[in-house]
């Protein structure tokens, strides 16, 4: 049967099992929008800015493990999407972003709404395609989904010129796709696994360090089994929170620049470090020269380029985290081998000493609302089961530190790129994927303004997101750095002319609340959670000078934290 390119587009999405796409129309994609209008298998969510579309697709993907799909037009539509695409690239989120393009004969001619999308996005995508012939469209779409969702996931951009969407050809969706130049390694090498286990079981001070790769791999259960079997302490990076239950006694909290005292000290003093699905990012390692001075390192990762990139490791294992962990568990159970019990006992005794530092304590007697208290209250009142998204800055760190996540795919934030504006649109994506769940967006007065227009999208689709605005009238994290390292020269970090957020929320048709006293915090959150079909914007006026601790300053090692 002969179909137009636009019809092939919709049919391909259906074949891929796509139920929802996020986008914004424009000239170059009008044929596609016409085809979408005339079918019912794929729903389209209209946002108010293309950046919002990409972040929404990211929230959808991160909370489900499925591939997010975006449709934007050429020129400014594509360039507005670049921030989100770069964000997905840094956090390895599976996305397929379809961008319209001017008709083929106009490409390279400085046409209306033309940009070299493929050229612009090349450094921040896993791969991209420009479709030059409608006969290649179905194949290209199949390849795009395959590349986005396999190996180390990432964004794939497919640029489709307008004439291709009007051209007709026979539609046949390829059953399989095989690419000679792309074959991710999924199973760990058995010899490497044996070698790793030998090293691990010889440890006297073992430490498990896990990251976003565990979540991408869906490996929370094997990780939990492995960790319990071993009896070792475990820490997560910002991206890995939720892959191991936070309320479990073996969990030491997040590590890194704003990680807990016990997590960072344990890393520093470990003799065998087991790195699983993490990439030794600079927020985690601090000064590389001082990182884990006495540890031998096992590194399990699906991306060979991440192994020994920053820190040389002793036993690398390339493979999908879930597969490798399952193989290791089987080996351990078959051999019945265990860690040295006495060494492990004294290691835990040392860790308990570090825990006594109680680095997460804060002033609970203040007359001002403390941001930590707001996050703790949310945790208590949602029983730790909500989906939580955040923007970037101090509020993000407080959310990561004080909301204990016991399940994976519930903590959705922008780690690698650190994109302000991520919180609200990603919460939309999460809510679409989990319609009956509580979705909370913890944000700050600076970040929330970056994609505030999406409040309109929330109204259109009735998304009952709970927004907790930790309002201190500053760009909190910038202010903190200026306080610590620039002798309090607060250049451009003060948020002038903040809107009345309650009035703003109500202008968009939502419920707004302003909370100024600590004793009103729990009541406000309770009331917001009761409003199951309304978006509630809670504007918490918090202590403007509260800082995030612990903190590892630039150039310092993991054991050189500022605690107070």
């Amino acid at each position: 049967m002969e179909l137009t390119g636009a019809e092939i587009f919709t049919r391909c999405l259906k074949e891929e099992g796509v139920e929802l796409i996020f986008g914004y129309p424009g000239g170059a994609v009008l044929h596609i929008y016409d085809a979408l209008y005339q079918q019912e298998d794929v729903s389209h969510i209209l946002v108010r800015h293309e950046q919002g579309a990409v972040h929404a697709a990211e929230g959808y993907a991160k909370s489900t493990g499925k591939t997010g799909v975006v449709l934007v037009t050429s020129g400014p539509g594509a360039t507005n999407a670049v921030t989100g695409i770069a964000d997905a690239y840094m956090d390895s989120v599976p996305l397929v972003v379809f961008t319209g393009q001017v008709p083929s004969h106009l490409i390279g001619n400085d046409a209306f709404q033309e940009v070299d999308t493929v050229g612009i996005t090349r450094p921040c995508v896993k791969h991209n395609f420009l479709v030059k012939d409608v006969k290649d469209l179905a194949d290209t779409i199949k390849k795009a989904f395959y590349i986005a969702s396999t190996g180390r996931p990432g964004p794939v951009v497919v640029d489709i010129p307008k004439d291709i969407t009007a051209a007709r050809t026979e539609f046949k969706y390829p059953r399989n796709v095989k690419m000679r130049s792309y074959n991710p390694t999924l199973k760990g090498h058995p010899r490497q696994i044996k070698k790793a286990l030998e090293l691990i079981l010889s440890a006297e001070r073992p430490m498990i360090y896990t990251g976003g790769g565990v979540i991408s791999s869906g490996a929370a259960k094997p990780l939990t089994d492995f960790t319990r079997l071993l009896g070792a302490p475990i820490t997560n990076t910002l991206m890995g929170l939720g892959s191991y239950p936070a309320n479990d006694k073996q969990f030491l909290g997040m590590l890194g620049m704003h990680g807990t005292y016990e997590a960072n000290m344990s890393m520093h003093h470990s003799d065998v470090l087991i790195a699983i699905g993490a990439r030794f990012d600079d927020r985690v390692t601090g000064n590389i020269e001082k990182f884990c001075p006495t540890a031998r390192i096992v590194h399990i990762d699906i991306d060979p380029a991440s192994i020994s990139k920053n820190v040389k490791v002793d036993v690398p294992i390339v493979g999908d985290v879930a597969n490798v962990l399952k193989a290791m568990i089987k080996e351990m159970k078959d051999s019945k081998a265990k860690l040295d019990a006495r060494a492990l006992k004294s290691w835990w005794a040392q860790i308990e000493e570090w825990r006594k530092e109680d680095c997460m304590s804060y002033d609970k007697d203040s007359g001002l609302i403390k941001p930590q208290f707001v996050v703790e209250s949310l945790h208590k009142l949602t029983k730790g089961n909500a989906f939580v998204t955040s923007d970037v800055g101090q509020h993000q760190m407080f959310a990561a530190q004080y909301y204990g996540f016991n399940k994976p795919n519930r903590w959705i934030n922008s780690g690698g790129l650190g994109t302000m504006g991520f919180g609200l649109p990603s919460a939309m994506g999460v809510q679409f994927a989990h319609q009956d769940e509580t979705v909370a967006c913890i944000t700050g007065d600076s970040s929330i303004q970056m994609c505030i227009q999406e409040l309109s999208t929330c109204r259109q689709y009735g998304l009952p997101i709970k927004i907790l605005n930790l309002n201190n009238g500053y760009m909190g994290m910038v202010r903190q750095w200026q306080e610590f390292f620039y002798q309090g020269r607060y250049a451009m970090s003060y948020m002038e002319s903040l809107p009345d957020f309650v009035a703003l929320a109500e202008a968009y048709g939502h419920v707004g609340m302003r909370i100024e006293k600590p004793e009103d915090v729990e009541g406000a959150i309770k009331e917001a959670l009761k409003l199951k079909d309304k978006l509630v914007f809670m504007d918490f006026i918090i202590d403007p000078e509260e800082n995030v601790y612990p903190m590892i300053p630039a150039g310092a090692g993991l054991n050189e934290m500022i605690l107070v």
Partner: protein
Amino acid sequence: MENEAGALSRVAGLFSARGYNIESLTVAPTDDDTLSRLTVVTRGSNEIVEQIIKQLNKLVDVVKLMDLTEHSHIEREMMMIKVEVENMEARQDVKRLSDIFRANIIDVTPGTYTIEMTGDGQKLDAFITALNEHPIVEVVRSGAMGIARGEKALHL
């Protein structure tokens, strides 16, 4: 690499984005017209070279990759060089040097000779040094190509 538009840009972009150095680069289709062969000369520590290899392998367009310096190999580069020759003595000297270096004079005018030469990088550099007082008008180099010695080969 796949012989597709953009493949070369991807490789070049990777080097510039990650701050790796390209000393020379040459690319052309192979006997299989769906594949092109790109040869790049770069410089760096062992760790950097290992990272470069891993990052290149990640590129979807890169099918297969080989570090030629790991094996015994042959390197060749081509050069065309235009030299000023203002009198008979100069012309004789340049012809003598070209013969010694087994180069060919491919263009002649009253005031210049254009010489074509093939060899490894060191031979080409040596010829330029040997030309000494003869003013060099222009040098065009192709960038190095390489092939492994013996039976080892880069193929699918």
